[in-house]
C-alpha cells in the first residue's frame, strides 16, 4: 500500500512540475477572469454620454415625449448615474426639416475641442413617424450596435405608448395585460422538493458527464503515454524488481488521476471564486459589478456530489487501467493508438448514452445503461441528478462496477506484467490473451 502511494506521489510530482501542466492549469482561470472582466472593461470606454440633437418635425408632442424618454436613460442601472444622452431639440416644419438637419449634421462627428457645439448624432423625427415608425439617425457612431439598439428601443417605447393613448387605451393597463407567464420548475425526489430547478438538474447532469468525458480522454491518454515512456526509458526494469506490476499499475493510474483531480479542483475553485467574489474583483479593476459577466453555478446536493465522485473514481480507474495495459503492450504511442482507439470509442459511447438518458432518465435504456460498468459512470450520476433512483438500482450498479474494476485491473495487471518487458514487435491479440493466461 505504501509503495503504491510512493509511485502515486512520484507520478503526481513529475506531472505537476511540467510546464504543460502549469500553463494549462493557469490558462483557464486567466481566460475565465478575462472573459468575465474584459467586456466590462471594453464597454467602459464606449459608455459615455452622447450628445444628440433631435430635429422635431412632428406637429404634436411626439418630439417632446421622445426627448423626455431619452433624458431618463442613465449610463448604468444606478439611479445616481450620469445621463446617457445630452439632448437638444430643434423644432422644424415639414419644409424646414432638411435644412435644419443639414445645419446640425455640419457639427456632427467633429472633436469637441474644435467645435464646442459638436454632436455625436442627429435624430430626425417627421410628422409621419408616429404612423409609419420611420425615423432617421445620422451620427458618427452608427456602427455601435448596442448604442443604436438602445436609441431605437427608447423611441419604440414612446411610439407604442403614444399610439395606445391615441386609441384610448391606458398604457399601464396594456403593460399589465402583456406580463408573460413565468413557470418555476422544482425537482421532486422521494416525495420531497429538492429546491433544484429542472433546468439546473439538466445542466448539472450535462456538466458532470462532460467533466468525466474530458478527464477520461485527456488523463487516460496521459496514462498510456507515461507507461510507454517508462518502457522506452527502460526504467521499468529497475522498478520491476522492487514493485509488483499491480502496484506499478495502480500507482500510475491513481497518480495521473490525482493530477487530473488537482487540475479540475483548481479550475472549479476559480469558477467559484470568480462568481462569489465578483463584486470585489469588479471593484478592484474599477468597473461596476453589474457590467461584469457572471458564471451561473448550479448548486449540487451533497448526495449527488458523493454519487458523482464515487462514479468518477470508479470510471477513472476502470478506463485508466485499460489505458495503462494498452500502453504496456506497445513501444510507441502511434502503435498503441490503434488499440486505444477502441477505449476512446467506449468513452464516447458512454458520453452519448448520457444524452439519451437525459431525455428519459427513468426509461429502460437509462436503467440498463446505468448497470453496465463502462457506461454507468456517465449515466448514473446524471440519473441521480434528474430523477429519484431507487437505492437498490444504485447498489446493483455499484457492485457491478466494482466487480468490473477488479476484473479489469486483474487482466490489466497481467498484461502489464508481461507487456512492460516486451520490446520489439507489436503483440497480436492472441499473444495478449496468452499473457493474461500465463501463470
Amino acid at each position, binding site marked *: 500500500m505504501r509503495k503504491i502511494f510512493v509511485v502515486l506521489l512520484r507520478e503526481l510530482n*513529475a506531472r505537476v512540475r511540467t510546464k504543460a501542466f502549469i500553463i494549462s492549469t493557469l490558462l483557464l482561470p486567466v481566460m475565465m477572469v478575462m472573459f468575465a472582466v474584459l467586456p466590462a472593461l471594453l464597454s467602459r470606454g464606449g459608455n459615455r454620454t452622447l450628445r444628440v440633437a433631435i430635429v422635431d418635425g412632428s406637429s404634436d408632442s411626439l418630439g417632446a415625449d421622445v426627448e423626455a424618454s431619452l433624458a431618463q436613460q442613465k449610463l448604468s442601472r444606478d439611479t445616481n448615474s450620469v445621463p446617457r444622452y445630452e439632448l437638444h431639440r430643434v423644432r422644424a416644419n415639414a419644409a424646414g426639416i432638411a435644412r435644419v438637419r443639414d445645419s446640425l449634421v455640419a457639427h456632427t462627428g467633429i472633436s469637441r475641442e474644435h467645435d464646442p457645439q459638436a454632436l455625436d448624432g442627429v435624430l430626425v423625427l417627421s410628422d409621419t413617424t408616429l404612423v409609419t415608425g420611420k425615423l432617421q439617425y445620422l451620427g458618427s457612431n452608427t456602427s455601435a450596435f448596442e448604442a443604436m439598439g438602445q436609441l431605437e428601443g427608447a423611441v419604440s417605447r414612446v411610439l407604442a405608448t403614444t399610439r395606445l393613448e391615441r386609441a384610448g387605451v391606458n398604457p399601464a393597463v396594456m403593460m399589465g395585460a402583456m406580463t408573460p407567464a413565468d413557470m418555476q420548475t422544482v425537482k421532486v425526489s422521494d416525495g420531497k422538493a429538492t429546491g433544484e430547478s429542472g433546468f439546473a438538474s439538466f445542466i448539472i447532469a450535462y456538466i458532470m458527464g462532460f467533466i468525466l468525458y474530458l478527464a477520461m480522454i485527456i488523463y487516460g491518454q496521459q496514462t498510456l503515454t507515461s507507461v510507454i515512456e517508462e518502457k522506452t*526509458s*527502460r526504467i521499468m526494469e529497475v522498478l520491476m524488481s522492487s*514493485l509488483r506490476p499491480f502496484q506499478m499499475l495502480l500507482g500510475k493510474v491513481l497518480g495521473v488521476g490525482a493530477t487530473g483531480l488537482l487540475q479540475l479542483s483548481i479550475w472549479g475553485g476559480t469558477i467559484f471564486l470568480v462568481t462569489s467574489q465578483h463584486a470585489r474583483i469588479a471593484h478592484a479593476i474599477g468597473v461596476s459589478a453589474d457590467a461584469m459577466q457572471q458564471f451561473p453555478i448550479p448548486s449540487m446536493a451533497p448526495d449527488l456530489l458523493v454519487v458523482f465522485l464515487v462514479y468518477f473514481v470508479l470510471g477513472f480507474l476502470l478506463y485508466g487501467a485499460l489505458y495503462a495495459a494498452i500502453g504496456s503492450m506497445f513501444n510507441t504511442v502511434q502503435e498503441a493508438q490503434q488499440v486505444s482507439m477502441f477505449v476512446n470509442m467506449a468513452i464516447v459511447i458512454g458520453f452519448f448514452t448520457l444524452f439519451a438518458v437525459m431525455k428519459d432518465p427513468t426509461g429502460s435504456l437509462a436503467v440498463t445503461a446505468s448497470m453496465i460498468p463502462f457506461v454507468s459512470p456517465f449515466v448514473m450520476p446524471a440519473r441521480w441528478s434528474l430523477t429519484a433512483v431507487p437505492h437498490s438500482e444504485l447498489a446493483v450498479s455499484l457492485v457491478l462496477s466494482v466487480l468490473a474494476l477488479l476484473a479489469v485491473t486483474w487482466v490489466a495487471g497481467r498484461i502489464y506484467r508481461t507487456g512492460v518487458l516486451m520490446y520489439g514487435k507489436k503483440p497480436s491479440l492472441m499473444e495478449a490473451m496468452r499473457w493474461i493466461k500465463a501463470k
Partner: protein
Amino acid sequence: MSTPAISIDHVTKRFGAFTAVKDLSFTVPSGGIFGLLGPNGAGKSTTIRMIMDIIEPDAGKITLFGSSASSRDLSERLGFLPEERGLYRKMKVLDHLAFLGEVKGMRKADAKVKADRWLQRLGLSDWRLKRIEDLSKGMQQKIQFAGTLIHDPELVILDEPFSGLDPINLQVMKDVVVEIARSGRTVLFSTHVMEQAERMCDRIVIIARGEKVVDGTVSEVKAGFGERHIALTFFRGKEVAERILADPALVAKLDDYGASAEVAMAVGVDPQALLRALVAADVGLNRFEVVEPSLQSIFIAKVGNAAEVPAKAAA
C-alpha cells in the same frame, strides 16, 4: 556452512521453441563476489531475471536466503542493476535516488540522507538538484549504481555492471563492489569480460547456451582445467625455438605473438623438458614462466566457439 544467498535448483526457461536456460543448478554462497559468466545469449540475463522474479521459470526452483518467499517480498534485502539501464529523465537526481530508496521500503528522509552520501562518494554532489537528462551518460550510470545500493542490500545483483564505463568510473565501481563483499555482503554480477571476473570473483559459474559449463572458486577452476601454460619471451634463436615449439610431443597448442608466445604443454609432459630442449638449442630466453591458465583461455576452451567471445586479448 551458512545458508546460501541464492540457490538455483534445476531451473529451465523456454521462450516459445527456444530454450534460454536448460536445467541449470548452482549455489551462490553468502558473502563474497560471485561471477556469472558466459558469452552473449548464454542465458545470463534470463537467469538473473528469474532470480529477481521478473520472469518465472518453467521448471525448477530458485530460493533466496533459504526463504520460500518471492524475491519481490525480499526486495528490501536485494539490490538489482538491470542490463537495460533507465532513469526518469525529467526527475532531479536527489529526488530520483530517494524514490528508488522509497520503493525499496525506505522512509523518504532516510533515503535522502543516503542519497546525499552516495552522491558525495561518487563525486556528484554538485549535481544533486539537476535533472537526470542534464547528466552525462557516465554520470547517469553512477546514479543508477547508487540507486541499486541506496538501501544497503544484503545481496546485490548486477547485470553487466561494467559495460560501457570509462576506466575511471570502472575503477570507482569496482572499489564499491569489492567494499560490499568485504563488509560480508554478497555480490553476484554477470559479465562476458573474463579479465574482470578473474580479478574480482571468489567463485564463478560459466554458462553457455543455457547450460552450466564450469562451476567453482576461481582457483579450483584453474586447477581443474589441467592444461599447463608456459609464457615465453625470446631475444635470440627464434627460428630454432619455433621448431621446438612445433613438436606435438612437447606442446599441445601455441599462441605466437612474435617476440613472445604462450604455449599449452602436451598432456603429461613436464615443463622442465621444454626448458631443457630450448636451452640445449641455445635459444636466448628473457622469460620462461609456468603460468596459470587465464579464465579467458578456459572460457574459450570450454565454451568452444571462440567467435562468440569478444576477445579481450585482441583489444
